[in-house]
């Protein structure tokens, strides 16, 4: 390729990159900008992109700290509900992720390593469950959970979240396990390890990128899920943030508090970004390089 053509390619790539970045990040920028606008400003007929006079009122109201710009106390009910929803979100998402990853690791290991009857069936069923529309289960689940007294509880959300994320986690992890040479754990067993020790000390560390990938996907699902969260909860005892946000109606039904909604969105996105940045380092491709001749 000539230098000129290469320069053209580079320019084209950069332009495409910028276009896509703007396309993806504009809504995010819009939400961040909204979160600094006062109710008066969001209610105005033609709002501008940047806040005219930025205010932290929305954050203060939601988190229940400090005083608003007009000197009044923030509404305690709003922050109470939001903070409870935030705790619920964390609790439900973390527990669902933990359980899902633990079960998926064990199941995926069995699927990758053992030959048993119905292995294909298990895998196809898992995939079928993953493809099942969540909405169609809301009605039956609602009835069941009421009978089992799981309605409006954490387990009532954790169990369905696990069910929907396990298949994907199992598929991801069994792919990772299959990549790990059999010899690794055979070597460990010859070296004096029990099957469990070989699994824990050799296989799991090697599958760490897969485990973290599965964990992130599960956490995202549980953290962002809305349909089940709104249908299977009734109070802030178990309602998660996405569901709670639909209750941000404000005093005037014709003038919803867009600023607060945007602020809640920002607050709820921060943990996701932190978690991705933390786990990203763990998802190092090719961790197994050097295990065997390659």
């Amino acid at each position, binding site marked *: 390729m000539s230098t000129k053509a290469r320069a053209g390619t580079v320019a084209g790539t950069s332009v495409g990159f910028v276009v896509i970045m703007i396309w993806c990040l504009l809504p995010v920028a819009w939400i961040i900008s909204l979160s600094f606008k006062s109710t008066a400003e969001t209610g105005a007929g033609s709002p501008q992109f940047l806040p005219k006079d930025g205010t932290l009122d929305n954050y203060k109201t939601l988190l229940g700290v400090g005083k608003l710009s007009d000197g009044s106390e923030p509404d305690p009910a709003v922050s109470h509900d939001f903070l409870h929803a935030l705790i619920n979100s964390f609790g439900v998402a973390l527990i669902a992720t933990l359980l899902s990853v633990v079960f998926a690791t064990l199941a995926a290991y069995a699927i990758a390593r053992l030959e048993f009857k119905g292995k294909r069936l298990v895998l196809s069923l898992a995939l079928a469950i993953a493809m099942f529309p969540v909405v169609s289960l809301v009605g039956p689940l609602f009835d069941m959970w009421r009978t089992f007294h799981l309605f409006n509880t954490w387990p009532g959300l954790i169990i369905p979240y696990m069910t929907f994320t396990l298949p994907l986690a199992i598929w991801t992890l069994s792919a990772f396990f299959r990549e790990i040479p059999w010899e690794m754990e055979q070597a460990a067993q010859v070296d004096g390890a029990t099957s469990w020790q070989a699994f824990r000390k050799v296989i799991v560390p090697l599958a760490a990128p897969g485990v973290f990938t599965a964990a992130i996907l599960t956490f995202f699902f549980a953290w962002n899920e809305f349909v089940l969260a709104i249908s299977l909860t009734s109070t802030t005892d178990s309602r998660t943030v996405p569901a709670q946000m639909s209750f941000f109606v404000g005093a005037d039904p014709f003038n919803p508090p867009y600023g607060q909604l945007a602020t809640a969105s920002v607050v709820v996105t921060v943990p996701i970004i932190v978690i991705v940045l933390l786990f990203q380092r763990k998802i190092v491709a090719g961790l197994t390089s050097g*295990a065997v001749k390659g």
Partner: protein
Amino acid sequence: MASISIQHLVKKYGDGFPAVNDVSIDIADGEFMILVGPSGCGKSTLLRMIVGLEDISSGDLKIGDRRVNDLAPRDRNLAMVFQNYALYPHLTVYENIAFPLRLAKKDNAEVDKLVKEAAATLELEEHLQRKPGNLSGGQRQRVAMGRAIVRQADAFLFDEPLSNLDAKLRGQMRTEISRLQKKLGITTVYVTHDQTEAMTLGDRVAVLKRGILQQLATPRELYDNPGNLFVAGFIGSPPMNFLPVEVDGTSAKLPFGSVELPADKAQKVAGRGLLIAGIRPEHFEDASLTDGSGGSTFQAKVDVVEWLGNETYAYIPFEAPPEVAKQLHQLEKDLDGEAMRTQLVITLDGASRIKEGETAEISVDASKMHFFDPATGENLTVDPANAGQIPGAAVPA
């Protein structure tokens, strides 16, 4: 340290195919035993049965005085070096070597002492803090051996440990393994498909074909007294030549002419009709370079000549009668070979001036000839006193 006793070991897979079929080998304490054979002969399966990674379908396996058939690998106290090394990539070299000791719950001071010792033996001291991914093939190989020697196992098991190295390194590591084994004096079972490794390393060599032990003998015995056609063809490079032959009195009729046999040999094969003669390439010579006393000579047209400096390989094609050709073709398949034609390979002195396409006068040392039964492949002229054990022989040694 311990002896290993393998008694009538059988490994049958789900489809009933015996990968290892009634193999019995006694490995003495401190002995270096080689299991060799072409791919699919069951040598690796046998090794994995010894270490406990494969179940034993029937037979007895004893390490020392203990029957270990049903013990888990970790309870057999054997150390194994895998073909692809199977190092733990998430651990440093130090922790890789220390792994068996950590599992045995040794205290840190002892672990450190043993790891340092092993590293010193294998010259790995400067690499202890590196990860296996950053090491060269030979270094990885040494780490794998370090993990084996660190724990004072009863025996070492090697599964084709050198097959992933390049030719030069392979030669060096071969010597290294031999030296290490002599130094530690530990019972060793070594699987390879490479007959050079088998000949140079082993105190004794077990040759396997399709799960059946063919011959168990010292390298010299295998070379001089192969028990059957398969062993004869497998051991030696270039391989032994197989020719159709008819013996009449003391005269053996080969495709190129007749040679005179020593009386004792001729007597063993008298009246057997068409046989297969086995002659090693080095038992031929350019007749113009011998003083004329070296046995019979014959005329043959040389097809291809390969001059290697110290010696010359000459190739002489010949036609074989169908019953012999069929047996030779089957043998070629058993040996994983792909020879297209029946031809004679002979090793001549480097000084030989024979050219391609010439008809040359070749002498042959008939006293070193072997005669094989074309139906069974059995060596009819084997010297049972110097051939180790040949389990399949009609007349037991």
